[in-house]
């Protein structure tokens, strides 16, 4: 009897076994994701660096060159792979669309959390969620048939260019920035508002001087998140920006982004050739940029966490 009880007590219980199994499964899932991420980083890096190591392109020339013509060799006997037009295009479109989207997003977020939480939750929440769900090819198509002719009629040029890309991206990142700003505003403790109001501040003063200040780090994170999305968006931008590997001279002149050159070019090159490697180098630049965006988000998050 005693030994039976002892056995029962020393044996692992069923619940403990299930717990171990659960831990094992979730750890495996985690490992799989970590491995995938590392595999992607290693693959893109090795492919992207081969332009510089096996094709001996100068890194500085790559980052500052203005001619993108991988099929042609220049006076120095090196292929013309200057990525500056694409890098500039990507950054300009990203920054402009973030600048445009931020006021709208913050305004909407304030309306949804401070001014009219009930109506905001009932109408605006579903609307922004709907915007997130629309596939990017639909945005691109609308951009091509509506935005491009409109830009051509109002601002001149062919309509294809950074301005059209900005407008399309603005709509695409708006819901992301809005919903993250809403979260940031929600996380401001209620007693901040109560204290401000008790001191005699009006609602606007409370929002402007207390709530927005306290939510600044969260809002910045939201904006950087939106920028990261804009930077990586390929299809919709490619359809409206014109894909000309030229340094943009104005907002309505055709330009290109890293992603648009990648998607148009990759099918026409042969794996392992110089032309293909050059495209992988662009992908590497994209990867590094999104890593930097991630780092910025983490930095802001750490600096500005609200201490309750």
């Amino acid at each position, binding site marked *: 009897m005693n030994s039976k009880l002892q056995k029962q007590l020393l044996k692992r219980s069923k619940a403990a076994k299930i717990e171990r199994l659960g831990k094992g499964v979730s750890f495996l899932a985690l490992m799989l994701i970590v491995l995938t991420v590392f595999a992607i980083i290693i693959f893109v890096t090795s492919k992207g660096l081969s332009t510089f190591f096996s094709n001996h392109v100068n890194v500085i020339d790559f980052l500052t060159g203005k001619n993108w*013509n991988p099929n042609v060799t220049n006076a120095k006997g090196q292929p013309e792979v200057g990525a500056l037009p694409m890098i500039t295009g990507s950054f300009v479109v990203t920054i402009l669309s973030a600048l445009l989207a931020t006021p709208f997003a913050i305004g909407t977020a304030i309306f949804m959390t401070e001014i009219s939480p009930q109506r905001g939750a009932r109408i605006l929440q579903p609307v922004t969620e709907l915007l997130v769900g629309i596939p990017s090819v639909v945005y691109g198509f609308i951009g091509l048939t509506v935005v491009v002719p409109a830009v051509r009629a109002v601002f001149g040029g062919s309509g294809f260019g950074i301005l059209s890309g900005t407008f399309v991206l603005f709509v695409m990142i708006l819901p992301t920035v809005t919903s993250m700003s809403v979260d940031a505003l929600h996380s401001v403790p209620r007693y901040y508002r109560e204290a401000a109001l008790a001191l005699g501040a009006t609602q606007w003063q409370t929002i402007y001087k207390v709530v927005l200040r306290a939510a600044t780090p969260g809002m910045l994170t939201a904006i950087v998140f939106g920028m990261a999305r804009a930077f990586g968006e390929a299809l919709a931008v490619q359809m409206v920006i014109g894909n000309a590997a030229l340094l943009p001279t104005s907002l309505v002149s055709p330009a290109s982004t890293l992603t648009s050159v990648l998607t148009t070019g990759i*099918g026409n090159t*042969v794996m392992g050739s110089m032309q293909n490697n050059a495209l992988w180098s662009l992908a590497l630049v994209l990867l590094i940029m999104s890593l930097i965006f991630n780092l910025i988000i983490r930095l802001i998050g750490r600096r500005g966490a609200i201490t309750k």
Partner: protein
Amino acid sequence: MRKSRWIEGLLLVGLIILGGWAYQTRQVNHSNMTITAVGSTALQPLVEAAGEDYSTQHLGTFINVQGGGSGTGLSQVQEGAVDIGNADVFAEEQNGINANRLKDHRVAVVGITPIVNRTAGVHRLTSAQLIGIFTGKVLNWSQVGGRNQKIVILNRAQGSGTRATFERYGLEGHRSLAAQEQDSSGMVRQIVATTPGAISYVGFSYVDKTVQAVSLNGVKPTNQNVTNNRWPIWSYEHMYTGQKPQPLATEFIHYIQSKKIQNTLVRRLGYISMADMKVARNGQGQIHKVVKGHE
């Protein structure tokens, strides 16, 4: 507890059925009944249509056709990843391809024509004018007999077979200046149709009423003019295989080259039949007359 058992059981049964179905319909890569053709999007419609025809006549065979571009097609067939690589260009013209390891099968010819927006008011150009436009020396349509409108150049993506052919035979080897690029002919046509002053180039089958095809040096872009090389901007549609292709791949290519397909599908889809060609061209661009009965 009872309920969750029930669901587990259902899931298990579902998994077994799915697995069984997947096993039944699995692709048997090493059997001789399935081949894969990858590459040029310009040739894709023809290969797809012919593949469907072939499969209905030879039950149990399956022709898997994918796009991806000429470069992808050539590199995949060179690596042996697919059975057939479709391309608009000679393998010799593509960087990174060892043409000696591939076998060339020409299945059709495609003519390429410059197209302009209808409002430009231009119907004909000379070669010199065309080169001037695409190298940036001619900036306004009024300089070549059209309306006072700025010229907007639209290119296919770098490395596209259509672009390579156009630059080689339409621009006589001059490179187009950097301009807008699009990665499909359908997109190019739509943009040329809606953008005032736009000019670009597409295969004959893409020309419709929304755009203006341009005659070059007085020659109209017609199939007839391609067959005797009076219209010089054309290219072969190639289907490349390895040196020792699968029997089904060879058979399928012969099927596309057969009179039946050349006279029906090839023409209906806007390509020019190999049988109609009175001239032949090699990878170096040299033209010679076809002696009938030989080729």
